[in-house]
């Protein structure tokens, strides 16, 4: 039995999949035996040297890890305060951190003898990563995507199709990411024998939040040794954007017990957390149960889930991983929100100052860096998770800037 060590933030979840009151296994009975099987397979794989070696080889030769830790010197000078490092996961194959997790889950699916992979996707980044790894291993891949997002993210839809995946437009509910996740769960309930559900973030029933976090933690482990090498010490602040929270958990988790490292998660504030149009579950939601876990959710007075809004499709989710909910209540991580227009400003600045077109998701994290870096000492060090590149977003940005491509 795992007892939560009060002196550590790194021992969760407990054996029931709980981080404090958050997490758990809120699924239909049909799925319960499947997630227990998955938990067992993951427990076995975790300690199997050959699993680790296979994953490390693929990370190195297929994904291109380790990703560099890059000192953004012009940006640092421009903001005139703390040194800004970027953990460049946007250089990964397929252009985001998503593939770190997908590789791990697909290797696990292969170990379990599953032949059909399903996934949900919002912006299409997780869908593309899943389609990619399925192509590499010759597995059947079905991606559920809200019909609204299929319309908004045409290039990624075409990419997935090129990679041999079937893309199913979801028209139930309100046709967005949360509905795509519902539809993936409905598919899984129906195809229990051969199907593996590859969830794209640190949400869902136990063991997904912990498993996805562990796969994404490669980001934090690399950053830890890279910053030691570059600065001879730990950073002062880590910053990452939060949709479901996987890139943030991946960066934060290895540092959680470094008491002097401050961490900030940046939610999508849309048009403002005081309006109805945002995706900030921690800032503007309250605890509830959805998609297999208890966490902070955007919901109305009657417990009905409400739609999220963000300029960034990858942050457009009304929930957040349960470990973040717990870290918020434990006050280990600070959570803030950034609005659409602030993210756009950061997007432009990053292009012009560093020659890096960021995804709109990490542009939210960068916007917060723009607020705090100038207030910090020149000796202070910030590490920002540059978790995705912006090729997918140029149409959205052009529209927001009133430019025709």
């Amino acid at each position: 039995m795992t007892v939560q060590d009060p002196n550590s933030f790194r021992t969760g979840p407990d054996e029931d999949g709980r981080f404090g009151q958050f997490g758990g296994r809120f699924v239909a009975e049909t799925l319960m035996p499947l997630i227990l099987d998955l938990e067992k397979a993951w427990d076995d794989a975790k300690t199997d040297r050959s699993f680790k070696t296979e994953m490390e080889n693929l990370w190195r030769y297929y994904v291109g890890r380790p990703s560099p830790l890059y000192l953004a010197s012009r940006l640092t000078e421009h903001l005139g305060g703390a040194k800004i490092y970027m953990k460049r996961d946007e250089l990964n194959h397929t252009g985001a951190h998503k593939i770190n997790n997908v590789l791990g889950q697909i290797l696990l699916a292969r170990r379990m003898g599953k032949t059909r992979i399903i996934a949900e996707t919002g912006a299409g980044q997780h869908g593309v990563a899943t389609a990619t790894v399925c192509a590499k291993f010759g597995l059947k891949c079905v991606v559920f995507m809200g019909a609204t997002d299929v319309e908004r993210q045409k290039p990624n839809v075409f990419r997935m199709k090129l990679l041999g995946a079937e893309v199913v437009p979801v028209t139930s509910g309100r046709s967005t990411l949360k509905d795509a996740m519902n539809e993936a769960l409905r598919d899984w309930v129906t195809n229990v024998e051969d199907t593996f559900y590859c969830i794209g973030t640190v949400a869902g029933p136990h063991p997904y939040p912990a498993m996805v976090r562990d796969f994404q933690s490669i980001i934090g482990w690399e950053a830890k040794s890279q910053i030691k090498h570059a600065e001879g010490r730990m950073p002062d602040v880590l910053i990452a954007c939060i949709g479901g929270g996987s890139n943030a958990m991946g960066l934060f988790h290895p540092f959680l017990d470094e008491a002097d490292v401050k961490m900030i998660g940046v939610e999508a504030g849309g048009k403002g957390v005081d309006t109805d149009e945002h995706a900030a579950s921690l800032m503007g939601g309250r605890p509830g149960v959805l998609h297999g876990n208890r966490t902070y959710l955007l919901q109305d007075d009657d417990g009905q889930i409400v739609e999220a809004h963000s300029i960034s499709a990858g942050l457009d989710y009304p929930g957040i991983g349960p470990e973040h909910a717990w870290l918020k209540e434990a006050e280990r991580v600070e959570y803030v929100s950034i609005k659409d227009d602030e993210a756009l400003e950061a997007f432009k600045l990053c292009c012009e100052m560093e020659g890096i077109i960021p995804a709109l998701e990490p542009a939210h994290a960068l916007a917060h860096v723009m607020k705090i870096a100038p207030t910090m000492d020149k000796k202070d060090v910030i590490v920002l998770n540059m978790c995705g590149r912006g090729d997918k977003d140029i149409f959205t940005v052009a529209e927001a800037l009133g430019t025709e491509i």
Partner: protein
Amino acid sequence: MSRIQQRFAKLKDENRAAFVSFVMAGDPKPDTFAKLLKGLPAAGVDIIEVGMPFTDPMADGPAIQLAGQRAIAAGQTLKGTLDAIATFRKGDDETPIVLMGYYNPIFNHGVEAFLKDAKEAGVDGLIVVDLPPEEDAELCLPARAAGLDFIRLATPTTDEARLPAVLKNTSGFVYYVSITGITGAGSADTGAVEAAMARIKAKTDLPVVVGFGVKTPEQGAELAKVADGVVVGSAIIDTIAGRLDRKGGPKVGLIKNVTAFVKSLADAVHSARG
């Protein structure tokens, strides 16, 4: 004896299977729903399952998803659902009512307050799809303590090793989900259901009803020969959906139509054992 126990005892005396109907609270409009609910016992319904609408019903097919959306759009709330049941109870103190839905609206209402309000309204049992035995401390155990039955779903993936855990805190009856899938999909194979019934009955004295995928009086009659009860939901809801006007309101004759279909199902289930 609880209403559910009394009902099954009576059915046993008469050598009949129970006919269980599922309708969504507030669908298509709260007032139409209230009238529909009132008419179900006379149409032959032995146990009424009332759906609590939720935006994200992850185990339901299109028919029940849309019913929930119609109800939410018509302003149905959890309080509204309990009020409708309280009104029903004024005219019927015998037909068991089981609330069926998802945990978030209940959690949001507050578990203690919900159990008190449901009990007062005249609810007999709960089926909460996303609360497996692993989460019994959330609602199942408090519900039992409050005198409400907690009816568990057993499924084709519930194997021999897991079955005792599923049955442990179950009360009222056991709901066997006849297919791996969502509501309204597929259709149950009587042979497989018969085998599952034997498997479950070997481990519990509770009545076992079967549902998911039952659409016609003929299917209902087949299953009534092997199970203690048969549940029909999506097919009833389809008849509601088929009689809506362009604004989503009920067309004239909706209640008569739906009730007639329900009666055909009930009659088939009741006469199946000759």
